């Protein structure tokens, strides 16, 4: 595939029907091209291509050629004429390839019909660019993930529980040797319930909501071993509960890793390039799919802004290189000071959250609106912290004077640390309360703080439920009370202040961190509140439509765009970090804390994971031996050795590919230089003639 050959092809101009001479010339060209190895890395046509290449007939993938349409049609006619000369299997192969291609395009059309919100995403991408679109794609991924997880939980835990409860199977009482104090659990409200309490209970997960399928405490530890309808039917609800939770985590991890792999592949093939480079902006900056004059103007401003940013960085680099030693020292010491200030702010937020959580847990029995405020205090403090501290850090960043790209990265890192660690602090404080680190005597009886938490898993679940709900309420409240009025004010009242403030910008990174935070809360709470994935699905769907509305009515596209390809990996990496946090919580709850005696599926076990060895003992002999063998050293050491071998193989393969890419690039450079050299030689050897050939420039 060289430009020369295609230009020769283009030398046929004019009519659509080639003359005899032209078609003959064309046949020569087509056979020349077909003998070349035509490497097509594009996945959609590669399969058909490779089949055609490996087959006995040298056909040419017409749609990938650069000939004008009339020539392509003529080439096709030539190919069709060649077909009967080959053996029958050849034409059957062509038909099969065609059929496969048609089938694939039909399947693609069918699936496109089913893809959620496809048209909306296209519209968003066309009007606001790839960065904002990547946020909505991420949101869609989380909606689907949560919905599938809910189906998993519903199928294995919820529906069996409902069935067994309706059949009337009573929970087994705890066989543990423990005082009756620990078995006390009365979540239902005593006496007459005031009307507005219903609403308060809905918001805080207490009262009528506490003893329901929503929370851990309602599920029974029924182990059904019956002979229903003649067949031997057994269902172990506690085991199902635990294994579903473990499998849910594993499933989410696999989804994230697969998605990350896809994004990473794109990044690696482009060699981790510097997208901000000038040639990229000039040649690939324009989005041809941009529609409408407003979007076009904005895109132009956006490109202008990107170039300005790069030029600014050049200027800053030159300026930094010209700084005296004294200036450098002051700059660096200022940066260190500002770093400590930022760390101080973040630590102050953490302390505030810890204090708020302790206070809230101590005053959880205050009735009425004040009680509601106290229960929501941790959520309020977290949200306030996550809102104020990044603003302050932005002001600090102005003093630090990092180059623009570094500023963005630093701000993002600070925000990520703030969000996820604040959640961690909340959980740590809760754990301290449950395991009574402050007042030892409360835990002596039941191994956990049974005075304050008769059913501690439900309390943790309630806390996560409140966080999720509060997040949603704050988003909707911001939309209604801040963003719409801001737009009204800016549009209808023009003064200097409003011009300076301007319309809202849709800032992608902070919105994505909000999503990651919400998802981490759900993962943490899924063990204690099995319906939380369903609530989260509904929450994210509402959030999608709210954000879409605010995007189209209130926002102007950001001047500072977010790169969509490398940012996809970043979002997924942060999500993975949140997953690890949730995993730590789950492992801790399952392995270290004693389950409540009074409620839940694990009430008769010393630790939650003890259900697994116990169920093990009920397995048939053969299965037990097989599982013991898998766990033994005789199996695991050879497995480990084989995995090491495979890993070494893949590492070697990856390094070979990297080296061959670098070598090919060098070859390309050499080929260009060779061409220049040859052209110059031709110029030297040819006598001066009136014809100008391609080599002569300027």
């Amino acid at each position, binding site marked *: *595939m060289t*430009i020369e050959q295609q230009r020769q092809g283009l030398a046929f*101009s*004019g*009519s*659509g029907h080639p003359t005899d001479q032209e078609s003959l010339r064309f046949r020569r060209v087509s056979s020349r091209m077909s003998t070349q190895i035509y490497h*097509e*890395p*594009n996945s*959609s*046509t590669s399969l058909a291509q490779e089949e055609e290449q490996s087959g006995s007939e040298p056909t040419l993938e*017409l*749609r*990938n*050629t*650069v000939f*004008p*349409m*009339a020539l*392509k*049609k003529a080439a*096709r006619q030539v190919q069709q004429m060649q077909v009967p000369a080959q053996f029958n299997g050849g034409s059957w192969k062509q038909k099969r390839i065609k059929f496969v291609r048609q089938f694939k395009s039909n399947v693609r*059309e069918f699936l496109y019909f089913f893809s959620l919100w496809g048209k909306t995403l296209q519209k968003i991408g066309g009007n606001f660019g790839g960065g904002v679109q990547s946020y909505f794609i991420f949101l869609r991924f989380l909606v689907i993930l949560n919905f599938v997880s809910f189906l998993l939980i519903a199928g294995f835990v919820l529906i069996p529980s409902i069935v067994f409860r309706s059949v009337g199977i009573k929970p087994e009482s705890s066989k543990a040797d423990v005082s009756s104090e620990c078995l006390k659990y009365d979540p239902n409200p005593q006496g007459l319930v005031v009307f507005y309490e219903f609403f308060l209970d809905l918001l805080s997960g207490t009262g009528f909501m506490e003893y329901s399928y929503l929370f851990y405490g309602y599920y029974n530890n029924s182990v059904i071993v019956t002979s229903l309808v003649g067949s031997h039917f057994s269902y172990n609800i506690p085991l199902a509960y635990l294994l579903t939770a473990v499998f849910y985590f594993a499933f989410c991890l696999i989804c994230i890793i697969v998605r990350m792999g896809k994004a990473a592949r794109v*990044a690696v093939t*482009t060699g981790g*390039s510097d*997208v901000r*480079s*000038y*040639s*990229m902006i*000039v*040649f*690939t*900056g*324009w989005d*041809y*799919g*941009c*529609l*409408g*004059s407003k*979007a*076009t103007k904005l895109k*132009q401003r956006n*490109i*202008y802004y990107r*170039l300005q940013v790069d*030029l600014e960085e050049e200027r800053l680099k030159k300026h930094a290189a010209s700084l005296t030693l004294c200036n450098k020292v002051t700059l660096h010491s200022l940066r260190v000071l500002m770093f400590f200030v930022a760390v101080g702010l973040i630590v102050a937020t953490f302390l505030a959250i810890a204090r708020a959580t302790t206070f809230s847990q101590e005053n959880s029995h205050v009735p009425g609106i004040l009680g509601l405020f106290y229960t929501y205090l941790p959520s309020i403090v977290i949200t306030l912290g996550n809102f104020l501290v990044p603003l302050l850090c932005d002001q600090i960043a102005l003093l630090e004077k990092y180059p623009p790209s570094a500023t963005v990265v630093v701000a993002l890192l600070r925000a990520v640390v703030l969000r996820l660690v604040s959640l961690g602090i909340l959980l740590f404080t809760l754990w301290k309360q449950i395991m009574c680190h402050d007042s030892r005597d409360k835990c002596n009886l039941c191994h956990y703080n049974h005075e304050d938490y008769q059913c501690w898993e439900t309390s943790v679940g309630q806390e996560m439920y409140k966080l999720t709900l509060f997040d949603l309420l704050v988003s909707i409240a911001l939309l209604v009370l801040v963003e719409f009025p801001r737009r009204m004010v800016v549009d209808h009242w023009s003064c200097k202040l409003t011009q300076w403030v301007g319309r809202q910008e849709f800032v992608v990174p902070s919105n994505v961190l909000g999503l990651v935070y919400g998802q981490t809360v759900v993962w943490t709470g899924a063990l204690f509140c099995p319906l939380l994935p369903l609530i989260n699905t509904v929450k994210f769907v509402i959030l999608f439509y709210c954000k879409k509305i605010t995007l189209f009515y209130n926002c102007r596209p950001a001047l500072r765009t977010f790169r969509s*390809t490398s940012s996809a990996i970043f979002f997924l990496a942060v999500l993975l970090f949140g997953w690890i946090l949730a995993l730590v919580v789950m492992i801790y709850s399952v392995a270290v804390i004693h389950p409540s005696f009074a409620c839940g599926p694990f009430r008769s076990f010393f630790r939650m994971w003890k259900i697994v060895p116990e169920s093990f003992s009920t397995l048939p002999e053969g299965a037990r031996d097989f599982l013991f063998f898998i766990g033994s050293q005789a199996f695991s050491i050879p497995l480990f050795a084989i995995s090491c071998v495979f890993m070494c193989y893949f590492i070697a393969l990856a390094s070979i590919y990297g080296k061959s890419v670098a070598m090919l*690039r060098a070859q*390309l*450079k050499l*080929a*260009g*230089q060779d*061409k*220049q050299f040859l052209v110059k030689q031709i110029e030297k050897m040819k006598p001066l003639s009136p014809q100008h050939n*391609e080599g002569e*420039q300027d």
Partner: protein
Amino acid sequence: MGNKQTIFTDEQLDAYQDCTFFTRKEILRLHSRYHELAPHLVPMDYTNEPDCKLPLALIVDMPELKENPFRNRIVESFSEDGMGNLSFNEFVDMFSVLSEMAPRELKAIYAFKIYDYNVDNYLCKEDLEKTLNKLTKEELTPEEVELVCEKAIEEADLDGDNKLSYADFENMITRAPDFLSTFHIRI
């Protein structure tokens, strides 16, 4: 397909399917778009392969192309006479290359043609300057334009002749992750 349409013969539609990335439905839809541009010029019956070309001014009036700063160059690159007059074959070819299923190499070839204003098969400094001015609506100062063009050529030029040949351009495009999604017009 159930309904009989008389715009193209089945043979013609098969040929279009093989030579472009469109399905039958999409080709018929493209024909109706082409017809809309000039209903009195474009015949509804294409079975005899009529020789009808639409001028540049009509094509760039399409909503998909109207706001594109490179619309004239796009249409000129796909026209055989280089003046921007497109027959239906060339019209389909243009949108086929700009569709999302066209491979990277094909798009790169045509992108190179589009940005090559003086059609000398090299992207020289003047070509880049024109491209940049179209991109930013001439809001950069001349010094800034000069600086950006110099840096762009410096980054991409592999063979050191101070202009970009197709090989340089293609090498740079392979490192651009967004190229496939930005060089794409939905129709």
